[in-house]
C-alpha cells in the first residue's frame, strides 16, 4: 500500500480544514466572542502546521493510488477531520467532554444532525456556526472539496471520489475528476446561496438563514433552537422543506439541466420514484394526523416538512412527531431507511438501490417460474451489469447486518427498544432525531460514552456507505504485499 500518499492527502485535508476554520473565526470576530476567537485560532494554526508538516514529510514521487488507498484515505480523512473539528468545542469548554464533542462533530461532518446538547441556545454564535458549517463541508464531501481546489493529486483520484460519493454507481459528468468535483461544488454552493437569499428575504435573520441553509444543503439538520425550525414562519418552513427535497436529488441531474439536456434529466426513474415516495408519504401522514390538527394547511405544512426532512435524511423538525400516531411514526421510520437519491448529499440506502432491489427481486421471481428465462435488469432504459446487481444485493445485506449489530450494542442502555431502534436508524442513516427519548425535542445526552462512540461510528459508516470503514479496519488492508 502507498502509505506515504495516504498521509500526504490526509495532511492536505487537515490543512484545508484549518483554512476553513477562518469562517467561524470571522464569525466570532463579528460577534466579538473573544474566547471562541482564541480557541478557533489556536486549533486552526496548530492543525495547519500539523497538516503542512504531514504532507511535506510524506510527499513522494509515487502518486499511484488504487481502490484500497482510496478507501483508506477517505476514512483517515474523515477521522482526522472529526477529531480536529471537535477540538474547538473541547478547548473552549463549551462541550467539555471529548467524546461528546467528537460525537457532535462526527454528527456534523456526516450530516447527521444528532446532538448531545440539551440546550443548544447556550452555545456561542461561532460554535453554532461551526457546527452547521461542518454539515456544509461534509455534505458534498471533504475530499471532493480538496480535489476541487488542489492541483490534480493523481490520475486515479476517481477511487477517492468513488469512496466518498454516495450511491451505487459514481459517474463523472465531465472527463476530469477535478472538474467534476468543481461542477458539483458550484451547483451545491449556488443552491445554498439561493436558499440563503430566499430565507433572508422571507424575514429570517441573516445568521439563522445561513446556518439553516448549511444544514439543509448538507442534509444535516443541526438547528440553533431547541425546537429546531418550529418557531419560524410558514414561508420559511416551506422554503426549507422544498430545498431539503432538492438536496436529496442526484446532483448529476442538476448538471444535465444546466447544460440544457433536461430530457435525459427527467427520464430518471430514481427521481420519479423519490418524488412519488414523498407524495404518497405526505398524503398518508396528512390523512393520519388530520384528526389531531383539524386544520388542513397546518397538517400539510407539518407533514410535508417532516417527510422531506426525514427522507432527505436532514433531521429538522417543525413539530414533535413523537406525539404522532403509530402509522405516521412507522412511515417516518421506513423513510429513514430508504433515504434520498444516490449522488446527493443524503444518507440512507438510497432510492436507486431500492428500485434496483425490487427489479432484481422481480427478475428472481420470474426466473423461479421460468428457469430458462434470460432477462436483464434495466433502469432508465439501460442494462444494469451483473456487477452492480450483486453489489446492490451485498450492500443491502451488509446494511441489515450493521443495523442489527449497532442495535445490539445499544441494548446495554436503559432506554427502551423504540428509542434504541430509532437511534440506530437515525444515526446510521445520517438523519439525527429519532423517536422516544431521542425524539426531535430531546437529545442523545442520555447515552453512555460507549454508546456515543458506537453511534459516532454508525454515522461514519452511514455517510461513507459502510465498505470504506470495513476495509480500513480489516487487518489485511494494512499488510505488506497484499
Amino acid at each position, binding site marked *: 500500500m502507498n502509505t506515504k500518499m495516504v498521509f500526504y492527502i490526509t495532511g492536505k485535508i487537515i490543512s484545508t480544514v484549518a483554512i476553513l476554520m477562518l469562517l467561524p473565526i470571522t464569525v466570532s470576530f463579528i460577534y466579538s466572542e473573544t474566547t471562541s476567537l482564541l480557541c478557533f485560532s489556536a486549533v486552526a494554526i496548530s492543525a495547519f502546521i500539523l497538516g503542512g508538516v504531514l504532507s511535506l514529510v510524506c510527499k513522494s514521487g509515487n502518486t499511484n493510488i488504487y481502490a484500497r488507498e482510496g478507501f483508506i484515505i477517505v476514512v483517515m480523512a474523515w477521522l482526522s477531520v472529526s477529531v480536529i473539528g471537535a477540538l474547538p468545542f473541547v478547548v473552549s469548554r463549551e462541550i467539555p467532554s471529548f467524546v461528546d464533542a467528537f460525537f457532535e462533530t462526527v454528527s456534523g461532518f456526516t450530516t447527521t444532525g444528532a446532538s448531545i446538547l440539551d440546550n443548544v441556545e447556550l452555545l456561542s454564535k461561532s460554535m453554532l456556526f461551526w457546527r452547521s458549517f461542518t454539515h456544509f463541508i461534509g455534505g458534498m464531501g471533504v475530499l471532493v472539496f480538496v480535489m476541487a481546489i488542489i492541483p490534480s493529486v493523481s*490520475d486515479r483520484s*476517481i477511487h477517492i471520489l468513488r469512496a466518498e460519493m454516495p450511491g451505487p454507481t459514481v459517474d463523472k459528468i465531465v472527463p476530469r475528476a477535478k472538474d467534476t468535483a468543481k461542477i458539483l461544488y458550484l451547483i451545491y454552493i449556488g443552491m445554498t446561496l439561493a436558499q440563503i437569499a430566499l430565507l433572508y428575504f422571507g424575514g429570517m435573520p441573516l445568521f439563522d438563514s445561513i446556518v439553516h441553509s448549511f444544514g439543509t444543503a448538507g442534509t444535516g439538520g443541526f438547528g440553533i433552537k431547541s425546537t429546531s425550525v418550529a418557531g419560524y414562519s410558514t414561508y420559511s418552513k416551506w422554503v426549507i422543506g422544498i430545498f431539503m427535497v432538492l438536496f436529496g436529488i442526484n446532483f448529476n441531474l442538476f448538471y444535465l439541466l444546466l*447544460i440544457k439536456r433536461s430530457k435525459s434529466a427527467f427520464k430518471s426513474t430514481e427521481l420519479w420514484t423519490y418524488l412519488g415516495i414523498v407524495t404518497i408519504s405526505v398524503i398518508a401522514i396528512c390523512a393520519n394526523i388530520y384528526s389531531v390538527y383539524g386544520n388542513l394547511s397546518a397538517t400539510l405544512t407539518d407533514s410535508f416538512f417532516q417527510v422531506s426532512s426525514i427522507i432527505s435524511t436532514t433531521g429538522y423538525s417543525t413539530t414533535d412527531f413523537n406525539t404522532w400516531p403509530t402509522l405516521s411514526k412507522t412511515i417516518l421510520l421506513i423513510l429513514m431507511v430508504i433515504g434520498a437519491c444516490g449522488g446527493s448529499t443524503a444518507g440512507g440506502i438510497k432510492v436507486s438501490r431500492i428500485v434496483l432491489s425490487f427489479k432484481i427481486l422481480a427478475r428472481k421471481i420470474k426466473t423461479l417460474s421460468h428457469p430458462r428465462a434470460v432477462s436483464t435488469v434495466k433502469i432508465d432504459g439501460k442494462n444494469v451489469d451483473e456487477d452492480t446487481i450483486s453489489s446492490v444485493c451485498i450492500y443491502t445485506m451488509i446494511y441489515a447486518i450493521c443495523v442489527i449489530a449497532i442495535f445490539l450494542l445499544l441494548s446495554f442502555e436503559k432506554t427502551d427498544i423504540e428509542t434504541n431502534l430509532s437511534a440506530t436508524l437515525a444515526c446510521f442513516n445520517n438523519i439525527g432525531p429519532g423517536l422516544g427519548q431521542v425524539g426531535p425535542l430531546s437529545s442523545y445526552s442520555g447515552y453512555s460514552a460507549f454508546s456515543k462512540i458506537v453511534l459516532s461510528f454508525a454515522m461514519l459508516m452511514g455517510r461513507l456507505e459502510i465498505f470504506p470503514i470495513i476495509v480500513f479496519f480489516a487487518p489485511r488492508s494494512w499488510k505488506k504485499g497484499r
Partner: protein
Amino acid sequence: MKIIIAGCGKVGDILIKDLTAEGHNVVVIDKDSNVLQSITNIYDVMCVCGSAADYDTLIEADIKTAQIFVAVTGSDELNMLACFIAKKLGIEHTIARIRNPEYNDNGEGYNFIKQQLNLSLAINPERLAAHEIYNILKLPSALNIETFSNGKFEVIEIKLKPDSLLDGTSLSELRKKLPEKFLICVVKRGEETYIPDGNFVLKAGDIIAFTAEPSQVQRLLKKISKLQKQARNVMIMGASKTAYYLAKTLIASGNSVKIIERNKERCLEVSKALPNATVIFGDGSERELLLEEGITSVDAFVSLTGMDEENILVSMFASSQNVPKVISKVNRSGLASMTEKLDLDTIITPKKIISDVIVRYARALQNSAGSKMETLYKIMGGKAEALEFIVEDTFKSVNIPLKDLKLKPNIIISGILRGRKSIIPSGDDVILPNDRVIVIATGQHIDDLSDIIK
C-alpha cells in the same frame, strides 16, 4: 481540448494515456463496460458505454463540445461510419483508423474515401510501422531513425558499444576528433535523459540521439561504431499486414524478402499479392525451419507475428545466431517496457506511432496562432520529444545568434532547414523566417516555437 476516443483496444488505450498526459479532456466510448471500468480506474477520463456509431451514445458523450473525434475500433467500416456521423453532428476534426489494405493499397481510392468522409486524418498503423521498419533497415546501425521534412533531416538513435570511439570522451574533445558536422542532442543513461553540454562525458551503454548532415551520416557512423551495411536480404516472420506493407516497400527498392507464415491460406494470399517475395509455409518458432531457411546468412530478421511473446523469443534466438539486425514488433506497451532490459536491438510498437501522430495533430490545433508544428516524435522511449516548426513572422527571436538566445533548460535546437540546405547549428547560426527548426526537449510540453525561449 475535449477529445472523444471511440474504441478502447490497444491503440485506444495508449491514446487515452498520451492525450490525458497532454492535458486534454478525454471521453472514451466503448461497447464493453468491463473495459471501460478498468479504464476509469486508471485514467482520469469519462466513459460512455455504447456503439461508436450510435447517435444516442455520441449525444451522451456530449459530442457538440468536443473538438476532435478519434475512431480506433477494431473495424474500419465502423470507424468510417462513426467519423461520418460525428462530422454530421458538428465535430470539426475527425480521425479514423483505416487499416485494411483494400482501402489503402490504391492511393486514389484512399484519397477518395478520406475526402468524401471529410476525415482530417486517416491512419494506418501497420503502414506507418512498416515505413518505420524500412527506414531502420536502410541504416541498420541505428536503433531508431526519425525523419523530418520528407527525409531531408534525420534524428538517429544509436547505442554506444564498449569499443566505440565515443566511449569516455567528452563532447568538446569529440569536436576536435571528428571533422564532420554533427550534434549530439540527447543522451539516455539508464532511466535518466540528459541534454548534454560540452563537458558531458559519454560512456558505453549510453543511448545517444544525434543529428548530422545527411551526406555525412554514413561516414560518421563508420567512425563511431561498426557500420552495418544496408540490409539487402531480409527475413520476416509472420505475414501480418505490417509484413505485407514492409515486404512491398522492400521489394520495390530491390531487396530480397523471405516471409515465414504458419497459416496456409494467408501464405497463398501474400504470395499472390507479392509475387517477388519468397513465402515459406511453416512455423517461424521452429528452430530447424529457421536454420534451414538460412537465418544465419540474412542481413536482418524482423518478427511481425500477432504474438508479442513469440516475437520477443524468436528475436532473441535470431540475435544468438548473429543476425546483424533484429527488429521485433511488440504491441503491448507494458511488455515493450519490460523488454528494455533484454538485449534486443530494436522494438517497434505500432500503436505508439499512431499516438505520436494524433498527439501532434492535437497540439498543432492548439497553437494554430503561433508557428506551425509540422512534426512531433517521441524519441528515447518517450523520454524526449523532437519537434519540427516552420518559423512564422510571429516568432520574435529571429536573426539572433543561437548562443545569445535564452533557451529554457533541457531544450536544444538540433537542426535548421533553410530552403534545400540543412544546417547543423552552432552558436553563430541564426533562425530566419520561413526556416524549419527542429527542437528536441525533455520533460516539458512545447506547443509553439516561442515556448522554447525563456
